[in-house]
Every structure is written in C-alpha cells, then in structure tokens.
C-alpha cells in the first residue's frame, strides 16, 4: 500500500492555486510573488502534488487555538 504523506497528522492540507486564483491573490494581498514565503520544489508534499516552480500553494492550517488559517507559499 502506498502511503500518502498528506494524510499525516502533522501535514496540513496543501492545494495548488490555478493561474487565475494566483493572480487574484497577489492582487488582493498587494505583494509580488517573490515576497511570499517559499516552499521548495523538492519538498515531499510538493512532489506528491506535482507542483512546478512558480506555482503558488495554498496551505490550510488548523490550530487548536487559532482555528483555521490560510497561508500561501511560492514553489521555488
């Protein structure tokens, strides 16, 4: 059985943004894409998702105190 790394309790949900979503996001945040936090192309989760350099990943973090929060990382 192949293990899915994303199912692990320590790994929050990762999603690739579509080009349109990415553009919209950068506009609303008012930042350039290189100003976002980064995630490496050889990160195991990025590999699993099959994201490429320049993609933006949406990360849905869940925290017992803060609740659900959303973060973005640029694949470098």
């Amino acid at each position, binding site marked *: 059985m192949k293990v899915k790394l994303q199912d692990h309790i320590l*790994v929050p949900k990762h999603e690739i943004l579509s080009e349109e979503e990415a553009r919209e996001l950068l506009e609303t945040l008012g930042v350039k894409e290189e100003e976002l936090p980064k*995630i490496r192309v050889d990160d195991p989760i990025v590999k699993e998702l099959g994201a490429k350099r320049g993609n933006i990943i949406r990360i849905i973090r869940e925290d017992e105190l803060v609740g*659900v929060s959303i973060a973005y990382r640029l694949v470098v």
Partner: protein
Amino acid sequence: MEEKYRKILEDYPLPKKLKDEIVEELKAINADEDFAKKVVERCYQVYLKNLVEPGEAAGIVAAQSIGEPGTQMTMRTFHYAGVAEINVTLGLPRLIEILDVRKNPSTPMMTIRLLPEYAKDREKARAIANRIEATYVTDIAEIVTDLRRMRIIVKPDEKAMEKRGLDLEKVRKKIEKSLKTEVKVENGELVIQIDEPSYKLLTDSFEKLKRLVVSGIKEIRRVIIRKEGDEYVLYTEGSNLKRIMKEKGVDFTRTVTNNIYEIYEVLGIEAARNAVIKEAISTLEEQGLEVDRRHIMLVADVMTADGELKQIGRHGIAGEKQSILARAAFEMTVNNLLDAAVRGEIDRLNGITENIIVGQPIKLGTGDVELRIKLFTGGDE
C-alpha cells in the same frame, strides 16, 4: 435562531473560531436579532482593538515572551517523562535543540501507532515491536574466537532467535553479506574461517560481527509497548521515520518522531513548522511555563519562511541578515566586520539594529510611518 446569528456574523471578518464562540454565547442567552447585532458589533470593536498594530515589534515581543520564562527553566537535562523508562531531553537543553534544528537530537524518540487490526491485540503489537527493534548478533548468539584454528564461531541461542522470528539460515546470510566471506554451518553453529594468517583480520571481523544488526532497524534501539485507551502504542528509543512508515501494521498517519529535521525531510516544510510549534510548546509546558502559542508560531514561521528549516542563530536567521552591523552585533563581531571589509560590503542601514548602532530613529511603531505636510501655497492650485 442559530441561522440568524450566523447571518449577522457573515459580513464580519472575524476568525471562524471566534464566530462559533459568539454564536454559542448568543444561543445561551437566547438573544433577539437587535440585541445580537449589538453584541456582534461590540465584539468586533474589541477584536479590532486587540489586533496587533502595524509597525508593532512582534518579533521583539515574541523574543521577550519566550526569553523571560526561559530564564526559569531548569538546567537539569535528563528526566524520565511521560513514557516510563524512555529517557528524553527536557527543559532548556531541549528548547535549544529545537531552535538550533539539531540534525541528531540527543534523545530521538518515536511514538508509533498501529492500524486498528494490530492495535487491539497485544501479541500482534509485540510482533511488530520485535520486528523493528534492532537485534545484534550478540543478542541472539554467543560469539567465540578460536585463535588456534583462526576462526570465529557463532553459537546461536535458539529461544532468543525464535522470539525475534529468525532462523539460522537468515542469520548466516546476513553475516555472509556483511563480512563478505563464506559462513559454514557446523552442527548448529556458524563458523567463519579466516583464510589469511592475520590476527588483525580476525579481531576486526570479530568487532564487526559484534556490531552487526541481523534484524530490525538500526536506529531503533529499544521498543516499549504501552496501552493507551483501548489501543497499544509503541514508544521507541531512537528514530527512523522513513523506515517505520513502510513497516506493515503501522498507522503511518499517526506516527510521529521528536526529531524535527527528520520530519522536515520526510514530510516537508509545513509538517516541520507544526513539529517545531508542538515540540517547543510541550517542552515549555512540561516545565510549567505558559507562553502564548502565537509567539512560538512566529518563531516557527521565521524558521520555515524560506522553504527550508533554518535555525535561529549564526548559521541561520541571524547569520543571513543582509546588514553587516546587525550581524556583527549578534555574534563573532570582529570576524563579521573583517570579512565584510575584505569583501567591500555596503550597509544600507535599512534595519533596526544598524540604525540603533548609528543612533538614528528606527523604523518601528510610529517610526515606521513618514509624515507629509500639505502646505498651503495661497494660490489657486
């Protein structure tokens, strides 16, 4: 009624958890719509008041909030915590280990949870434990050297072998592979003949044989089984997440290690961020110190911002500051200044530290904004 409250809250940019709490409270007092609106509005005002203001020195506040309780931490390194019999580093040394991102923490440990069909059965759990625990030749056999005939004899202990699911043939193959010499079976014993008349070769082979792992995972030095609720959980001394996740019967999704760097390598940067937060908080909590998790989250965010796990300190965050003066103010002042001079670096005085050094106003709080005055020129324009 709940629907109505939700509808009122819909337009407010409040965190989901806060909204849930407000709804609960409103339900408890059974508020009507007008009253609920007032309550929500008031909550929103208080929420805005409590937000961190732009220009606030959040990093300094976090540093002080972690640093002050840190002074009260014990210097006592070892302690038998949580799980009986397994030694874990705690207190200040552990906190330093977490923030320094040590690749080999002094006491790596794993918590392995099992799939439902294995978790309920003690025997099955025991079998997995035996399979992953590192077994050395010395655990299952006696090793004797015969100097006169230049040979090493391995006398196996049948009972010990059976307990670990090994047989003579498996052990023989393992030894053959590692020593790269032929191993013969002579009436239930393994015989390794040293061909060259070299005493050194004999002792070397003997030493190698003693350290040879015949079954299990080398890093897993000890396994302890404990019953938690209605399932059996394995605790291990030593850690190897990559190998364990492929082990049969292990519920990989709920198996964790306290080696943060290993988590970073196997599960990626976001998992590492979670692990840093979790480990730091549990270390502080164990010492009876209460630090708001948001301070630690900030630290974890800084450590993981570039996509790789970086330590706080001269080889990580502090060492990568672009300003020479800021780096020199942290550690190894002379070296930093000398290197920068040799390379002809320029300090643009953009940061806080360097501006304090040269005695200029810093870009923090009200210093972060610039004022413009609209002059009345008197004319039509």
